[in-house]
């Protein structure tokens, strides 16, 4: 049977078909749908982990005892998991183990453009790079087999266009794979200096064997056409190159890219007159080819950033793409992403944006949009879980200045707090900070589309899960000053912030209201938030003075009648959070039943 699948769906299908026992992930665009889709197959245990390191470690454990296991994450997630990854390369695995890294050339939804192919080389583990959905499924089988044969985790490197592009995939049945017999092996598995020194040799020997494999395998092969131009490429860029050059040039198509197939590359280079290396992100293949003393064209003409889509390749090689029409910028408006109608983050940033002498340390999640107009309420965003710690360091240094009047407000969400923010809170307490720390608890991992987490009430496969109590947890970390508030009620937000500014010890304000995208509520949340999103707000036109203060909340349900100078509310999209009502100085906005 054939089905149109995204690369993420195809990977999940491969996970199912090729006997996987266990999978774990932390959501992150563009990787999120891999685990979401795996969770639909009841034959596989699929879990959301609190962060990528935990995901990789639990997957390592599953493979230690002989199971087939896969971890999935976005490129920056591998940074979090890297500590486990590098030593995992040394101690090896018994069952097949795959780490999927979804990279983002062009940074559609990411904070950097790092090329995780470097991780395969750095950690000395084999790497696969599928070029389309069909390969994204099929290579899972191959990756497991290589992992088991060589006793090593495998890096499975994809990019946004593999993750989110659909192609036709041939489906198969699930092949059950037996869990291998576990036998204690402390010489290999206990990572201490003495074992690491012997494992180091095993890694080196394995790399040599994998090089032989790379030179003689079905994933790396030349396609000879006219030999004036030869192109070496991998991943979806192979398809882009075929779009531009068709059968007019020769290709060396690489699907197994660590170690790189030295002999194949040398042979191909001898056959063609001019050699192009076309690859997104870093010159990973190019540097290897150049180190072999082979002349090639790569970074000289292809851009170092962004996607190498067919138009970009065409322009780089021929000096011109096919574009004929040019947009008229005067006829455009900017359409940046913004908080949804009813988003519980909105009121927090409306209020924070008004505060004087305040530096706001942000974090990764929907709340990062607080930096943008109309809120302008964020000074920096670094990486997952960094707000409490960057805020702490900043406050410590500012406190050294005479008469410092600047306060740090650090902001993150529930899932980011679980991810690594919790460590930063320990730092804040232990090192006697006086920062104001906000946990915006919207009961879900929102930015990636609403995944469950340890605070949401459900597991990845929809079972009821025990829920973390934020206040207990925060107090357990040693925070003495804690308030839990409803962020949609302006008075609660203002009062909590005023209170926190007066303290010279660290405080935590937990704002608790569900994300509008949250679909499932456990009994406790049902009783707490049962009334959420059941009302509308409306404007009483006679009272509206046309001051536009409500519009400064940036809610997409709001509008303004220019002629009559009255605010409007779209009742189809308004869910009655009441944030605009809180900003209205004349009480012209009221709530009504939907």
């Amino acid at each position, binding site marked *: 049977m054939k089905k149109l699948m995204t690369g993420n769906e195809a990977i999940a299908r491969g996970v199912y078909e090729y006997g996987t026992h266990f999978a774990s992930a932390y959501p992150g665009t563009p990787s999120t749908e891999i685990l979401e889709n795996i969770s639909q197959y009841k034959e596989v245990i699929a879990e959301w982990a609190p962060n990528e390191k935990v995901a990789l470690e639990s997957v390592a454990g599953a493979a230690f005892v002989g199971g087939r296991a896969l971890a999935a994450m976005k490129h920056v997630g591998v940074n979090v998991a890297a500590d486990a990854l590098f030593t995992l390369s040394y101690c090896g695995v018994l069952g097949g183990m795959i780490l999927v890294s979804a990279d983002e050339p062009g940074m559609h939804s990411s904070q950097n453009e790092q090329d995780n192919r470097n991780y395969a080389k750095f950690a000395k583990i084999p790497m696969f790079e599928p070029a389309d959905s069909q390969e994204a499924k099929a290579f899972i089988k191959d990756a497991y087999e290589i992992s088991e044969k060589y006793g090593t985790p495998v890096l499975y490197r994809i990019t946004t266009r593999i993750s989110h592009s659909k192609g036709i995939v041939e489906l198969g049945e699930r092949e059950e794979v037996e869990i291998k017999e576990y036998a204690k092996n402390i010489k290999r598995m206990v990572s201490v200096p003495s074992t690491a020194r012997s494992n180091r040799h095993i890694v080196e020997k394995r790399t040599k064997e994998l090089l032989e494999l790379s030179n003689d395998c079905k994933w790396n092969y030349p396609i000879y056409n006219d030999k004036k131009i030869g192109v070496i490429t991998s991943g979806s860029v192979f398809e882009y190159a075929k779009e531009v050059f068709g059968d007019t040039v020769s290709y060396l198509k690489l699907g197994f890219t660590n170690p790189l197939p030295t002999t194949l590359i040398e042979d191909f280079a001898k056959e063609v007159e001019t050699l192009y290396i076309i690859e997104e992100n870093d010159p990973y293949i190019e540097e290897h080819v150049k180190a072999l003393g082979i002349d090639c064209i790569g970074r000289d003409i292809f851009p170092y950033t962004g996607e190498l889509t067919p*138009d970009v390749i065409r322009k780089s090689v021929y000096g011109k793409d096919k*574009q004929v*029409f040019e947009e008229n910028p005067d*006829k455009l408006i900017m359409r940046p992403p913004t908080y949804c109608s009813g988003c519980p983050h909105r009121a927090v940033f409306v209020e924070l944006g008004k505060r004087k002498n305040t530096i706001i340390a942000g974090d990764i999640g929907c709340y990062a949009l607080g930096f943008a107009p109309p809120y302008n309420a964020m000074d920096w965003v670094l990486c997952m879980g960094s707000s409490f710690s960057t805020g702490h360091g900043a406050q410590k240094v500012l406190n050294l200045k005479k008469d410092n009047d600047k306060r740090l407000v650090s902001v993150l969400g529930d899932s980011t707090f679980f991810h690594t923010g919790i460590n930063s809170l320990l730092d804040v307490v232990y090192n006697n900070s006086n920062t104001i720390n906000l946990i915006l608890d919207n009961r879900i991992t929102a930015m990636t589309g609403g995944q469950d987490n340890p605070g949401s009430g459900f597991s990845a496969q929809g079972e009821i899960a025990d829920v973390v109590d934020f206040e207990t947890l925060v107090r357990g970390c040693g925070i003495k000053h804690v308030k839990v508030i409803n962020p949609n009620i302006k008075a609660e937000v203002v009062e909590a912030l005023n209170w926190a500014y007066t303290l010279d010890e660290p405080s935590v304000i937990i704002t608790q209201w569900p994300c509008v995208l949250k679909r499932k509520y456990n009994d406790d949340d049902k009783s707490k938030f049962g009334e959420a999103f059941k009302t509308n707000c409306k404007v009483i036109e006679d009272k509206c003075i046309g001051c536009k203060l409500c519009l400064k909340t940036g809610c997409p349900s709001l509008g303004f009648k220019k002629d009559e100078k009255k605010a409007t509310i779209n009742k189809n999209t308004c869910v009655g959070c009441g944030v605009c009502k809180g900003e209205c100085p004349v009480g012209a906005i009221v709530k009504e039943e939907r």
Partner: protein
Amino acid sequence: MTKSIILVGVGGQGTITAAKLLTIGLMEAGYDVKMSEIHGMSQRGGSVSSQVRYGEEVHSAVIEKGGADILVSFEKIEAMRYISYLKESGKIVVNDYEMDSVMTIIGAQDYPDGVLDELEKMTDILVIKAGEKAEELGNLKVMNIILLGALIKSMELDNIDWNSIIEKNIKPAFVDINKKALTIGMESVAG
């Protein structure tokens, strides 16, 4: 010969659903099909695009600038934003429908006048009031299927059994209204 279709709009307008139905129909008709879209940040009221390519053998899932046979825009301004993707001989199907962005709501930008006039000067264009037609049907959301109907007719793909694709892929309660929407869309294309 590979054909390229780009569907653009604003997050929540149903471009992805329309593109999904389109690709299923094309696959069932025996074409090789690829589709690409960008999720993530763009879902929060941002500009979105779905790209569909079909033919005997499709390589790139991504349409290059100057490569689209047809640009279907679910919102007026968005047609202008993506015009660079259109071929010289390409045509536009555009929904005469305006959506504010956070920039117009907070008053940082004004929604420009005369977008459709400007597009008409550039190339072959079909303007459809899909919003009004959808409201007449009783559900604004089927705007996307009206536009899908216009696209199907424009690309001469009306020999595929789209009604059965709607039946198999849309929730039963919405099948009838979507079929009607598809017909309205197809009938809005002359010939």
